[in-house]
């Protein structure tokens, strides 16, 4: 119901782009705000604080600096005004607030293969800020205070629902198209390979198809993903080469992407894991331990043949990373459940040796106790 309300709000705002609000040329121009815009910024500031207070922000300084560096490269004249935050959320999402805060979800970073693909999204979000799309939409409802009130009513008390929250700052379709155009120009000007922008949207589309869902609500007001793939393909058809920055991206985000696999697994989002790791090309972007996560994803999916696939992955990672504890546990439990007690016990014991502080130690010890041969009856 809440999403319907927000959807109605977004639809109401989907009016032609306001012509008399000019984009900012640089950060200095943002120092003096009219009252309507100031009100929007204050609401956004409160939203920033609410997110931080709720512990939703990933504080990793190196990663945050990396993301900020990409944004500063895309919008050098707004350095110090656009602030990028990494959100601990797995939805494929990013959004910009009226005050220049740009949020990028960890799950989004995990879906991409290089910096140019991520830069495509960040350039788009930066354009929402520099072109003052929030204010334009507020003007369209004729009353910025009412707009801010709606934001306050829908947003601040509901920080838990990040999808809905990011959606409330959703922009009209016209604004999305403009942000795509501006973002593309920024991508080229910053020296990134613009052809990667096509892959950005292909990854998002693949993810949506894997989940068998409608396009996420956040994208509901955007042009459809396939339309955007076509548009960016046409734009970049004759584009010059640029930087992709694959190695830098994979190195800098390695820990985050692995953590993202774990988070997906912990939330039973096995389809995303299989989408990424069953692709041999993508698999090379991860260390050998990733085979364990793929095995777990197969186990969670539980279709015909998946337990055999899982066993194959567990065994492969036991060979390549024998000191990595989780596959010892996973294979041990698989064999335990299958009734292969003699084979399960050494694996489970090895798991506890490798991970003496394992949080599930109680379960494993309980199962090992069950595996002990029963005393013969007198």
């Amino acid at each position, binding site marked *: 119901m809440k999403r319907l309300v927000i959807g109605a709000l977004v639809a109401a705002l989907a009016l032609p782009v306001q012509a008399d609000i000019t984009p900012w040329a640089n950060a200095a121009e943002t120092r003096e705000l009219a009252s309507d815009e100031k009100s929007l910024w204050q609401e956004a500031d409160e939203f920033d604080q609410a997110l931080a207070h709720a512990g939703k922000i990933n504080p990793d300084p190196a990663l945050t600096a990396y993301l900020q560096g990409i944004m500063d490269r895309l919008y050098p004249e707004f350095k110090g005004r656009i602030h990028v935050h990494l959100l601990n959320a797995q939805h494929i999402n990013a959004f910009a607030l009226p005050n220049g805060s740009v949020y990028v979800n960890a799950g989004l970073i995990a879906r991409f293969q290089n910096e140019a693909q991520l830069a495509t999204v960040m350039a788009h979000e930066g354009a929402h800020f520099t072109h003052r799309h929030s204010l334009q939409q507020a003007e369209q409802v004729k009353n910025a205070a009412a707009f801010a009130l709606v934001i306050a009513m829908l947003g601040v008390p509901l920080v838990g629902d990040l999808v809905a929250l990011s959606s409330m700052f959703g922009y009209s379709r016209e604004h999305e198209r403009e942000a795509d155009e501006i973002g593309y120009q920024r991508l080229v000007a910053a020296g990134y390979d613009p052809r990667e922008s096509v892959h950005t949207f292909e990854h998002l589309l693949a993810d949506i198809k894997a989940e068998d869902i409608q396009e996420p609500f956040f994208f509901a007001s955007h042009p459809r993903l396939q339309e955007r793939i076509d548009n960016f393909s046409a734009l970049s058809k004759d584009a010059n080469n640029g930087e992709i920055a694959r190695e830098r991206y994979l190195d800098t985000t390695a820990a985050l992407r692995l953590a993202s696999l774990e988070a997906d697994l912990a939330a*039973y989002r096995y389809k995303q894991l299989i989408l990424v790791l069953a692709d041999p090309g993508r698999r090379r972007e991860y260390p050998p331990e990733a085979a364990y996560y793929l095995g777990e994803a197969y186990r969670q999916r539980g279709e015909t043949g998946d337990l055999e696939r899982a066993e194959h992955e567990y065994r492969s990672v036991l060979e390549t990373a024998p000191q990595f504890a989780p596959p010892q546990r996973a294979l041990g439990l698989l064999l335990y459940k299958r009734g292969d007690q003699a084979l399960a016990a050494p694996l489970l014991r090895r798991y506890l040796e490798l991970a003496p502080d394992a949080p599930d130690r109680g379960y494993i010890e309980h199962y090992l106790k069950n595996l002990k041969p029963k005393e013969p009856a007198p």
Partner: protein
Amino acid sequence: MTVRHALVLGLMLISLAACTPWARVDSASRLETKASDYTVELPVGWVKHTANTSDIFITRDGPALNYIVVNRQPHDVKLPHTKRITRADMLPHELAELTLAEWKSTDATANLEVLANTPTTLGGQPAVRLHIRYKNERGLPIERLLIGMVDAKGRLSLQYEAPAIVYFQRSQADFEAMAASVRLQ
């Protein structure tokens, strides 16, 4: 007012009185039997929500400050967030994994911290004991304790939740006693 109007008004008042959704638990009403499936002793002094007949919902100081919910569902009812079902042959750690996945699949508890995840028993059956902490939308730390199990009939869980500061500890003993009183029939 006609006789007919008076009668309708009287019936409305009676039905409103009958629909009062809360009832204080006293020593005479504490034993709860659910569909010849299980029995559980509710803590005296708590208030029971009487409107929902399939679950037990009780609170001592109001739902925002503490509550215990008992939930019994057949295996084929999908969990709301992961859309998974449970199975009678699930091992306890698998039930714990699925329960945590269910909680992590909703933004409100996505960043939960697991304080304890251990095997236990419920009504004499192997079960899981999950204790987590998360921050609500206002940044207030909340603790949740769940004891759950699966059997041939479905899944059964008791969940206690309260703000971590003061309230959780205050009523935890009532929850533990309630969980220990569960008898499967």
